[in-house]
């Protein structure tokens, strides 16, 4: 490498990204730190630096030298983007968001500049109806095999037999409980809400995300997580209003409070549950017996994507 300003720096950019990833693996939870900070709107430029590295020629198609994606915090292995940049010469700019609704607002406003983004299952039909995404050209996705898919998790990416989005990760929404503080074994959402008003008074957290908090209140009555029936929703509302004064917090940034022991039980996504249990074994992750949410995040390409070839390339890698 030629002499450049980087030669004298204490760390290389690769090392910095690596350290950053280690730091991130810690406790700050996913969607909400960003939701709260508005950092979702700021952009973390990951690949730009790396894009300056010497690159092999990719003659097949002109991929340009940069692309931008919208996704979730702490979500991708940075090595994926590094390898992609090394292979194709395309630097990846990563925009991180706090919620699907924020992502939708940005895309709807136009000029987002994304060539790939990661919406969650329930929003894909909305993107389709609003004409913000377009069908994927499966011929370009040589590594994708529809037969490898389990419809239970991936059906939402396909609308009227047309594939609009490919699955990325899936997980569940359950609750995490500190079994040293709340020894009674719990298995249901009904118990979750009951405990919140009894032993867990002042120690319980729920998401400040309407979908999951309302959905899991519905579940505790045995209703559908996705219910639109007015009488069922009224029951959920009544329960939530009754529980509210007993809560420790209404926040999706629950890892710090669970780790500090301020909160004993919280509504929780799979990934956070795994991290909490890994570091503090007495924190258990429980799925409500009544059922609940299985979420799948998908990759989709916006209609106004400035660099579609690179979007497809990243999907294929």
């Amino acid at each position: 490498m030629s002499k450049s300003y980087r030669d004298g720096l204490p760390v290389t950019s690769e090392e910095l990204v690596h350290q950053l990833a280690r730091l991130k693996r810690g406790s700050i939870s996913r969607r909400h730190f960003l939701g709260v900070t508005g950092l979702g709107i700021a952009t973390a430029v990951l690949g730009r630096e790396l894009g300056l590295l010497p690159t092999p020629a990719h003659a097949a198609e002109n991929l340009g030298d940069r692309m931008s994606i919208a996704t979730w915090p702490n979500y991708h292995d940075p090595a994926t983007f590094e390898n992609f940049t090394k292979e194709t010469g395309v630097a990846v700019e990563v925009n991180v968001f706090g919620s699907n609704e924020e992502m939708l607002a940005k895309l709807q406003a136009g000029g987002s500049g994304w060539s790939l983004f990661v919406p969650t299952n329930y929003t894909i039909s909305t993107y389709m109806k609003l004409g913000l995404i377009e069908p994927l050209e499966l011929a370009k996705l040589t590594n994708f095999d529809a037969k490898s898919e389990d419809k239970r998790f991936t059906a939402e990416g396909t609308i009227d037999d047309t594939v609009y989005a490919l699955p990325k990760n899936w997980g569940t929404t359950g609750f995490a409980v500190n079994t040293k503080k709340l020894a009674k074994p719990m298995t249901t959402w009904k118990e979750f809400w009951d405990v919140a008003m009894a032993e867990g008074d002042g120690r319980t957290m729920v998401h400040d995300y309407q979908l999951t908090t309302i959905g899991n209140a519905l579940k505790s009555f045995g209703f559908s997580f996705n219910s639109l029936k007015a009488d069922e929703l009224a029951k959920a509302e009544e329960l939530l209003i009754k529980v509210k004064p007993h809560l420790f917090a209404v926040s999706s940034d629950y890892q710090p409070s669970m780790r500090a022991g301020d909160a004993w039980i919280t509504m929780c996504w799979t990934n956070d549950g795994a991290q909490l249990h890994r570091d503090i074994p007495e924190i258990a992750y429980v799925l409500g017996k009544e059922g609940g949410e299985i979420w799948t995040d998908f990759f989709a390409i916006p209609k106004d994507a400035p660099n579609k070839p690179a979007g497809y390339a990243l999907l294929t890698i």
Partner: protein
Amino acid sequence: MLASQFRSKLLTALLLAPAGAWLFVFLVLPFIAIIVFSVGERAPEGGYQAALTMAQYANLPARAAAFWNTLILAPIGALACLLVAYPVAYYLALKAPERWRLILLALIVIPFWTSLLMRTYAWMYILGGRGIPALLAYAGIEDLRLINTPGAVLLGIVYGYLPLMILPIYVSLERLDRRLLEASADLGATPISTFFGVTFRLSLPGMTTGFSLVMILLLGEYLIPTLLGGGKVFFIGNALVDLFLQSRNWPFGSAIAVTLVLVSVVVLFIANRVSARFSGTRQVDLI
């Protein structure tokens, strides 16, 4: 004659043009958009759909709790800031040694160099179970809950906005004509009556400036209640974020925003009036 008059008008117009254009594009136009949104309807997929209805305004009571929290905690927060800030400003302006003054002022401003978000996030840990409550547990005070209470929000508010209160009060005290204090003493007034008769009254413009400034920012506060109130102490700012980014109900959010602006204007108006009445001048020091 005419030519020179024209030239001076042109100069005025040129000088005002950048600020005027800025305000028009980034304040007037967005505000018009918000007013238009506020008489519209939520589209089925969320967002805005054209309509002409007052339904959003009729629905305002649905967020009464947020208005109520804000209208109680914002003045209390501003008042708490004032009580803490006044002695500091007084000391800085009238008692601190001249050569220390600049350094002390700088020390007050320095925290501004770090993002309010970081500093508020730090308070989450200080007030959380492993922070002050853990220390107090050693002293035998068990199970004290600090985080996620209105008290924590108030503390965060005072901490975050203190410099905004100190500076205007400092300025008004610093400009105080010292001869007035001497005259008051010469005429036999005690230090206490001099303070209330002269110093306090002449610093009123600074106090109202600081109070309005903090109060108006607090009316739109979002971060501190979210982080230190645990989402349970819900401000109008939180309701707005929720409506725009979660429920995607822009018309209702807009109606709340317009109402908030009206409330802010009323607050400013009252603050100005109070200041004018008590200090006898119409001096306004909004930074």
